[in-house]
């Protein structure tokens, strides 16, 4: 069965190329749902696979809450863990991926991320190869599930490297890292889509480098235990320099020879937010890949975003190995979340953890019923503080003493400590703070419910609006049109559309598509972009060469649906321009004033483009002589709409959102379709010379 999955070739996607599904996707999600399906069916519970897919994300979000609890418990205590679990359960930043019906790689990946990190912390704490291997196994699952596994691949080495630099190398670190890296890397290479990347691409080199470094250090430790310190110093210096030079040379050499792939474009776009727009428009065209706007931090995280820094600072208080991990995770994830909206998802767990640490410290302090004794002159200082902190002090592991950073931090945080007793006096202060905190929690819950119901609960294929009487009106154009395609077109009819709708057409209409959401072939997408943005005469040969029978576009002008193809059109132009810079030029689609217009003032290139013609074909007739109005762009359309010679309107959905055109076959008489059309409409060809009239003699 596994072999069949790896060899699964889907000829209906990326027509005419086809796609090896097993080799071009992360199989984790499909495998998980398949396993659940088979288990349920073996138990005679015939649940439909679609129900499993719909409920997979909520199910896994429960596991995420549990693993966040385990992770936070390692950081502070159970109460912080419970808070963190509650936070991640409802925080909008994660709900966006865990609502029912969000069948996405991220649905299972966040659980795997948190659980792998938990196993890593546990392995590091106990020095247990068992937990190291467990971390590796879940890392493997993560690799099979989501491209974001590179985050783990780099977070764990980064953590280890920082620990080494801080002088915290220990055999526990060595065991944990080695077992994780060896088992994790070997198993991750079993995923066909990943293959040899773990040893050949730059993204994975950090993990390999740290693995090597750890071996050297461990070896050095071994040697030190057998040599005198003088000899060891010389040896260390020589070998460190030698190995460093060798390693760097080797890395450069391998990259130069092409053994190690250089950094990919996606990687560069993480550092330079303008890079993608210039060089890989297909990445920039996805709204999730845009830099994050400030309000969305509040929208997705609410008050956690204020508690988050406090929690990170509190990690400095104790600064055990695992706290360093949280600090690093917080810094790295904050940066990435700022670069791409989508990566907000990786930030959310650490925000929940840090905020839970901060919030539970607050509650611990203010709910703790022990009041400090009132200040008595001449009392020894240490006692009072000791009494208050006694509970916590028990739990703290013996602190590493000799680190530089740790020293600074502990000095900083304890500078004013001994002078005054800590604790809360009286009920009123407690009540003020606790009520305030509860109020914040209540507002958080209200906010999460509101955001979830407004932003994340509506499916994107079904739109809802309300009638004047308040009842719900459902706009179901997408499913209408897809079902029409499924029922009333030949089974092998090829449908061309922009790639956003590829999976939807494959799933709901069951027809071959040219491009889909698995954007593995940029040229093919650019071909579709070119066909959409050229004139009919240019586009027609492209359509015929790709056996296109139907062209499907989304048009929101009648209803005011803003996510339509005319609004995405510039991206099609840009992507096409990336491949055919001589034929498609973005400036031609703007007016002289640099405006993007679709009305009378639109530039001729725009007006003649296939996309424009298909969108507005017979649109103005709908208004029965009145001025036609595009409600998305609030522009008045010309009275006479565009005409089509090479395509026929085949279907338009109820609210005109989906319009499907059929590509005409070549004319039987060998004329070009434009002439044939003109002939059919009874128009005579203009003669170049007027007929000679016989003169009366």
């Amino acid at each position: 069965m596994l072999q069949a999955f790896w060899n699964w070739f889907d000829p209906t996607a990326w027509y005419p190329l086809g796609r090896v599904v097993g080799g071009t996707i992360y199989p984790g999600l499909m495998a998980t749902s398949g396993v659940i399906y088979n288990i349920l069916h073996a138990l005679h519970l015939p649940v439909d696979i679609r129900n499993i897919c719909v409920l997979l994300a909520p199910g896994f979000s429960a596991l995420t809450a549990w693993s966040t609890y385990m992770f936070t418990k390692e950081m502070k205590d159970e109460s912080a863990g419970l808070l963190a679990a509650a936070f991640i359960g409802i925080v909008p930043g994660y709900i966006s991926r865990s609502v029912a019906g969000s069948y996405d790689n991220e649905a299972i990946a966040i659980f795997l991320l948190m659980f792998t990190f938990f196993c890593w912390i546990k392995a590091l704490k106990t020095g247990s190869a068992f937990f190291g291997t467990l971390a590796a196994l879940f890392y493997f699952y993560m690799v099979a599930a989501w491209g974001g596994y590179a985050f783990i691949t780099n977070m764990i080495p980064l953590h280890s490297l920082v620990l080494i630099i801080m002088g915290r190398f220990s055999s526990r670190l060595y065991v944990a890292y080695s077992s994780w890296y060896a088992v994790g890397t070997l198993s991750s290479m079993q995923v066909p889509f990943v293959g040899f990347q773990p040893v050949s691409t730059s993204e994975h080199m950090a993990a390999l480098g740290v693995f090597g470094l750890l071996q050297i250090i461990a070896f050095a430790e071994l040697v030190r235990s057998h040599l005198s310190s003088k000899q060891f110093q010389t040896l260390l210096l020589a070998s460190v320099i030698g190995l460093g030079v060798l390693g760097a040379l080797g890395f450069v050499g391998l990259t130069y020879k092409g053994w190690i792939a250089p950094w990919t474009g996606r990687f560069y776009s993480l550092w330079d937010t303008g890079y993608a727009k210039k060089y890989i428009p297909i990445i920039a065209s996805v709204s999730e890949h845009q830099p994050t706007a400030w309000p969305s931090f509040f929208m997705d995280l609410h008050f956690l975003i204020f508690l988050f820094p406090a929690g990170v600072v509190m990690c400095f208080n104790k600064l055990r190995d695992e706290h360093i991990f949280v600090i690093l995770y917080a810094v790295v994830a904050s940066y990435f979340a700022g670069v791409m909206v989508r990566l907000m998802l990786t930030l959310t767990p650490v925000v929940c953890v840090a905020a839970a640490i901060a919030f539970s410290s607050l509650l611990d302090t203010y709910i703790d019923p022990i009041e400090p004794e009132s200040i008595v002159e001449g009392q020894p200082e240490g006692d009072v503080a000791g009494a208050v902190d006694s509970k916590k002090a028990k739990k703290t592991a013996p602190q590493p003493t000799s680190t530089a950073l740790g020293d600074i931090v502990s000095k900083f945080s304890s500078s004013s400590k001994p002078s005054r007793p800590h604790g809360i006096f009286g009920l009123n202060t407690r009540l003020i703070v606790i009520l305030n905190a509860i109020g914040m929690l209540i507002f958080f819950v209200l906010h999460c419910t509101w955001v979830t119901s407004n932003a994340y609960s509506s499916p994107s294929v079904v739109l809802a609006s309300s009638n004047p009487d308040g009842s719900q009106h459902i706009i179901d154009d997408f499913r209408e049109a897809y079902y029409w395609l499924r029922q009333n077109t030949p089974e092998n009819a090829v449908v061309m559309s922009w790639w956003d709708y590829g999976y939807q057409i494959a799933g709901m209409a069951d027809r071959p598509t040219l491009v889909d959401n698995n954007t593995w072939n940029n040229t093919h997408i650019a071909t579709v972009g070119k066909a959409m943005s050229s004139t009919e005469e240019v586009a027609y040969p492209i359509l015929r060469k790709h056996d296109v029978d139907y062209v499907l576009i989304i048009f929101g002008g009648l209803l005011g649906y803003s996510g339509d193809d005319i609004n995405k059109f510039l991206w099609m132009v840009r992507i096409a321009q990336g491949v055919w810079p001589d034929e498609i030029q973005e400036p031609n689609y703007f007016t002289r004033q640099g405006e993007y217009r679709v009305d009378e003032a639109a530039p001729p290139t725009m007006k003649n483009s296939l996309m424009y013609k298909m969108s507005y074909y017979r649109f103005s007739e709908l208004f029965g002589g009145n001025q036609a109005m595009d409600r998305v762009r609030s522009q008045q359309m010309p009275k006479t709409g565009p005409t089509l010679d090479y395509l026929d309107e085949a279907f338009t959905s109820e609210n005109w959102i989906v319009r499907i055109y059929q590509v005409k076959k070549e004319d039987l008489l060998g004329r070009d379709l434009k002439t044939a059309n003109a002939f059919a409409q009874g128009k005579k060809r203009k003669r170049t010379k007027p007929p000679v009239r016989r003169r009366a003699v």
Partner: protein
Amino acid sequence: MAGRWRSRLTLLFVGLLSPLIASAEHSFENTAIVRTVELAGSLVHVTTTYAVKALEDDSSIYTIALGEDEQKKTSWIQARLKGQSVPLELENFGFSPRTGAHLYAVEFPQTLKANASANLIIETVQTHATYPWPQEAFQKDGQSLKYEADLFVLSPYPTVVQRTKIRSSSPQIHSYTTPEDIEAFTLESPVTKSGSTLTYGPYNNIPTSSTEDFVKTNQKRIAVHYTYEAPVLEVTKLERAAEISHWGANLNIQDNIWLRNAGPRLKGHFSRLEFQTQNYFGRSAPHTLTSISLALPPGIHDVYFYDLNGNVSTSRFRPAPSVPKGSQSNQHSILEMRPRYPMLGGWNYSFTLGWDSPLEDYGGWQKESGKYLVGIPVQTLMPSAVVDEAEIKIILPEGATDVAFHPPFPAVMNSISNHITYLDTMGRPTIKLQYKQLTDRHVGTIYVEYRVPFSAHLKKPLAVSAAFMSLFALAFAWKRVDTRIHK
């Protein structure tokens, strides 16, 4: 069982008397035959009244003949005496080339004396008897159909006078055949049209017509081309699954329906603009199907209507309360459903429709036999549509034994198999019946009898609790076994 036995008996009886039948033309005479054809879409109702006069004493077996083409189209046939509602039994003899017709025998309840008369009514429903003409139509065009039939009603007996009335629902009849060369039977105009009715005949003194010779020389084809104002619907396939649950006291019925608009194929393409304009001015095209109103049984709840793309939200449901047992009521729960898109000529739409209903409305336990008896309706009528193929599945409770079923009309194929569903250990006995060409007269109830022992009811809770208990026991054991390698 009894019915089958009796039919065997008649078969034997008829087999013995077959030489008599061959010369049966002497025993009856048709004083008049009137055939009425109701033109419609995919279903055409034909009623033929035979005024029969017996020529000999003790005549009781009357033979009816259907032409070869007519037999092919006829999907339902019933005989009764005028003024009575009890149908008479029809014995099918099949096609015989010697007569050029398909013969049925009907036995009168009382034997007729010489010169006594009886009025026999044969009702048939023809399916796929009409076809769109022209075969393609633009979206804004009207819809016209063509119906073809034989001019003469065949009979193994001589007929004094014969008439055929063809009624259309609209007076717009574009054309019809005027038969020629029939001066032997009539001297007046062979066909008259008044309003929406065409009358062929009266034709007098027709000899025994179910002979090869008559069919070859005198039989004529007639065709009527008429306007039809409603969409022509065809259910190409119907799958009904009825699941009986004793635990939930519930009968779930689910229909998977493949619907097709068999009207003229759409010429050119569908234009939403035109469709919306037509609707705006209230002139929607007759061959466009936008909504269907279905009469579902009363007392049902949790109706669902979905297709492969999920729930279809464009339907309205008006439930009617359950009817108490034994009382008659014409109330129906009405479901007004709209397909996702308007169905134009030649378009298909498949969907699933299902509902739950209280089991006590459909069956009960019989004290005398100790068996349960449940009645499952054969189909929910799709208005004026023919069902080309139907598969009806009745899923009985787990552990049901002594299963017997009595369909209202014989199935093409039936079988009993095993169906395993939610938490079943053994599976449930399932009755499968297959039908072809169901019409609006194929209504009725399939009665299913079975026995469920008390232990079978307990099977599921026991199995589930045993599974959970073993799970807990495993967990219990695991907790107590030390799996550490070193202490």
